[in-house]
């Protein structure tokens, strides 16, 4: 990152409106199944029978046990590792990070290299929840805005992305708009 760090973000600002996924769908690692629903609801202590009782789910018109609406994004995350991939764990240091991760900003081909990343806001419009047996992926990844900003965390930019979550049968289940902050932490920048 140069001294005039805001200029480093200009290629990203110029790319507002671009679909970085070219309309393609990246499917998540696993189909919806009752075990992963259980693991999602456990820390939330979300006890609706829709999420574990197929009979109750069917009585409300669903084909099978229903995943929480907000789990759809988790189901769209690609695998961290799959057979044939190189190892993720190259460094034994306690805080060492995996060589690759599907949920940071690693796949951003433009702009400065950032190591800090978190979501800032989300808008979700749901068409329907996922049910056991379905797979879901993220279709498209359009950059809607880019605003460079220095914060207490470091120097970076607020980015807004838009995509759709679609099932393997082609149903759109949700429209997603996500705000993120990608940045170089102060400790690294100094």
């Amino acid at each position, binding site marked *: 990152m140069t001294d005039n760090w805001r200029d480093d973000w200009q290629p990203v600002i110029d790319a507002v409106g671009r679909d970085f996924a070219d309309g393609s769908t990246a499917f998540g*690692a696993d189909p919806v199944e009752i075990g*992963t629903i259980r*693991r*999602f*609801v*456990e*820390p*939330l*202590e*979300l*006890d*609706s*029978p*829709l999420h*574990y*009782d197929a*009979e*109750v789910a069917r009585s*409300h018109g669903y084909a099978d046990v229903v995943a*929480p*609406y*907000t*789990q759809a*994004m*988790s189901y769209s*995350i690609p695998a*961290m590792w799959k057979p044939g991939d190189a190892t993720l764990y190259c460094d034994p240091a*306690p*805080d060492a*990070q*995996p060589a690759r*991760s599907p*949920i*940071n900003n690693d796949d951003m081909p433009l702009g400065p290299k950032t*190591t*800090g*990343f*978190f*979501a*800032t*806001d*989300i*808008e*979700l*419009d*749901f068409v329907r*929840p996922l049910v056991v047996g379905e797979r879901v992926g993220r279709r498209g990844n359009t950059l809607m805005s880019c605003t460079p900003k220095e914060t*207490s*965390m*470091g120097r970076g930019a607020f980015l807004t992305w838009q995509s759709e979550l679609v099932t393997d049968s082609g149903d759109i289940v949700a429209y997603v708009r996500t*705000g993120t902050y990608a*940045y170089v*932490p*102060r*400790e690294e920048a100094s």
Partner: protein
Amino acid sequence: MTALVSRQRTYEEISVGDELGPVEFPLPIYRLVVAAGGNRDFNSIHHNRSYARASGAPDAYASTFFLLGTWERLARDFVGSAGTIRAIRGFRMRKFNLVGSTMTVSGRVTAKRMEGDEPVVVLEVSCQVGSDVTVGPGEVVVTLPLTGGGS
């Protein structure tokens, strides 16, 4: 498995101003690790305190997926199995929900209306730690059944 059964609310019973929660979520590291295993957000800022501090945060903090889930928990507790969730809007993270704190999620009914045949209710929801609003306030748009089994 036997389902837990609670009485189903209906659209007609709901009034603007009705309150939801609060539901308390103590946030030990243990819970955040269980959450990461469940929602696949393994970003170290959510369970590794030294890594989170090096990233510029005061400490490890709850993930977006977990926090979104707390809004769904509050809404689902309110709408029951016959309700649906149509949208979450204004879910803006204003402050960190840090490990070691207790976050509460709460809400209230701000509108109800029929959209065609659909009985729609709008909930204003936020997360709070102490007196600080940490997420939102935003909206969760839900539907509830009509008395007598309409939509």
